[in-house]
């Protein structure tokens, strides 16, 4: 784990209002695995850090993908090249790829794309065949970047690919399933593929296992920490009824 002051070095748009930010943070870039995250400190900015999955790690660069939904994300998208943020990471337990499965299907809804490029990359490096199924509200919201041997799209309005959620576009046999996206999508996915690995979001304070703020309820009745035991879980292990979606209090809808 590292706590670095990382300068913004690049930025590009990958969907309507979704941007990728690349920060120079070599030690994190070299260690991070798919599904892990960093906790970002903004100064001036809100009190707490903001957690983000690592989208890509290339050489010295750690890339994040986001849209502005509140104060922290808004400030991140206002950064200019050279501006520094605090990056604490890599944090959490990422995806555990199973090369014996031969094939992996990545299922992402909306900003759930975040951990997928690294997952695709790692899976292919292990010799797995990668199919990426990505869903969004409409064509303009689909991420323009993808990786893998095959990609499928789904849009709620049918403007590109299958009409519906990413779930409905998953080809069978799916092989190993890794997923990230809105909680209702993940809960539905858990019913169909309880063995899938899902990356979930909870509000976090520390990101390092100390505060117990990031409780994820399991069907076994206990809470675990999304930042430490998670954010990746076996889909069937989560008590989805009791896992609230994080709420925003920013200026975005």
């Amino acid at each position, binding site marked *: 784990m590292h706590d670095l002051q990382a300068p913004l070095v690049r930025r590009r748009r990958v969907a309507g209002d979704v941007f990728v930010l690349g920060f120079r943070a070599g030690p994190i870039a070299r260690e991070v695995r798919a599904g892990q995250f960093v906790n970002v400190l903004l100064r001036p900015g*809100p009190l707490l850090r903001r957690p983000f999955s690592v989208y890509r790690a290339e050489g010295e660069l750690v890339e994040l993908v986001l849209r502005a939904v509140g104060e922290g994300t808004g400030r991140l998208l206002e950064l200019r090249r050279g501006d520094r943020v605090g990056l604490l990471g890599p944090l959490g337990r990422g995806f555990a790829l199973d090369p014996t499965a031969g094939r992996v299907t990545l299922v992402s809804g909306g900003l759930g794309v975040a951990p997928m490029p690294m997952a695709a990359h790692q899976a292919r490096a292990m010799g797995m065949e990668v199919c990426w199924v990505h869903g969004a509200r409409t064509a303009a919201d689909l991420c323009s970047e993808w990786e893998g041997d095959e990609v499928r799209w789904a849009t709620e309005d049918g403007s590109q690919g299958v009409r519906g959620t990413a779930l409905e576009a998953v080809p069978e046999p799916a092989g190993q399933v890794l997923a990230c996206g809105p909680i209702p999508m993940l809960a539905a996915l858990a019913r169909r593929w309880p063995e899938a690995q899902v990356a979930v979001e909870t509000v976090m304070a520390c990101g390092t296992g100390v*505060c117990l703020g990031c409780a994820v309820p399991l069907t076994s009745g*206990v809470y675990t920490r999304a930042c430490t035991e998670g954010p990746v879980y076996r889909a069937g292990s989560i008590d989805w009824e009791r896992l609230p979606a994080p709420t925003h209090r920013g200026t975005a809808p």
Partner: protein
Amino acid sequence: MTAPPGGDRRPLGVVGPAPDWGGPLEVGGVRLATPVMAASGTFGFGTEVPLCDRRALGGMVCKGIFLEPRGGAPPPRIVETPSGMLNAIGLQGPGVEAVIRDYAPLWATWPFPVLVNLNGETVEEYAELAARLDGVPGVSGLEVNISCPNVHRGGMLFGHDPEPAAAVTAAVRARTRLPVWVKLTPATGDIAAVARACEEAGADALCAVNAFVGMALDVRTGQPRLGFRTGGLSGPAIRPLAVYLAHRVAQAVRIPVIGIGGITCAEDAMEFLLAGCRAVQVGTATFVDPNAIGKVVAGLRRRLSPEGAPPAPEAPTGVGRRHSPVRTVAGDRVVE
């Protein structure tokens, strides 16, 4: 009519001189390596916080425990607020037996003291916890939490008034030879009276203060944003309130006071020390910067060291030697 909060409306006495800090200090029966400790619930059981300069740690208070393991409060458990955060963790944690078995042996090997934060729903539960921990190697003291805002029974209930606070303190005192610190809640009409009651009941030190009860609503659903509905407000937002309350307590008692609330840098810690506290605890800041305590201590060292200290300004009360810090060192403010 009980006394007004903070006692009476006479002007507060002058604030105290900053403490002499040459080396380890003895506070309420516990030998601290530095005057800066980790606050309960913000440092786990001491094994979780990464990247923290442990040589800076004066001591640590572990997450609050009950006799039995507890599951804690339903999520969401955290809400950020302006310069603060609400938490409602609900004292999730292992029971006392697991602490004695899994953590105390580790603590015994550490260079800084560990206090256990005690919680109960009845006076007898607190007493029983104290008895179980008495003589356990690795446990250097008890911090009696009569101020937790996030449990339905017990907790803060005991901290509102002098009588129940004294009852808990006396019961714990009777069952242990360990130093007994009592952690006060701000949610009382007269914190000085509660403080005096705890002192008389045998407390070795007082910790002021725990989090303040607050609430945030989700305007989209009209419902509270925390699973427990209400939570405890901590962080820089409460610092001016905590400095005032810690000062009231320090004026009311002779036993040492440990100041808590919104400390993020050496200057913040100095406020509590000047207000009459012998040591401080850092909580929320550790979430933001895992090495917050290391930075606070580094800043205090610069301030309280002979080279850092300026020609002492005239001490208006003439009580003791005065270390008035003047060099405010840029860069030691970690959060806000």
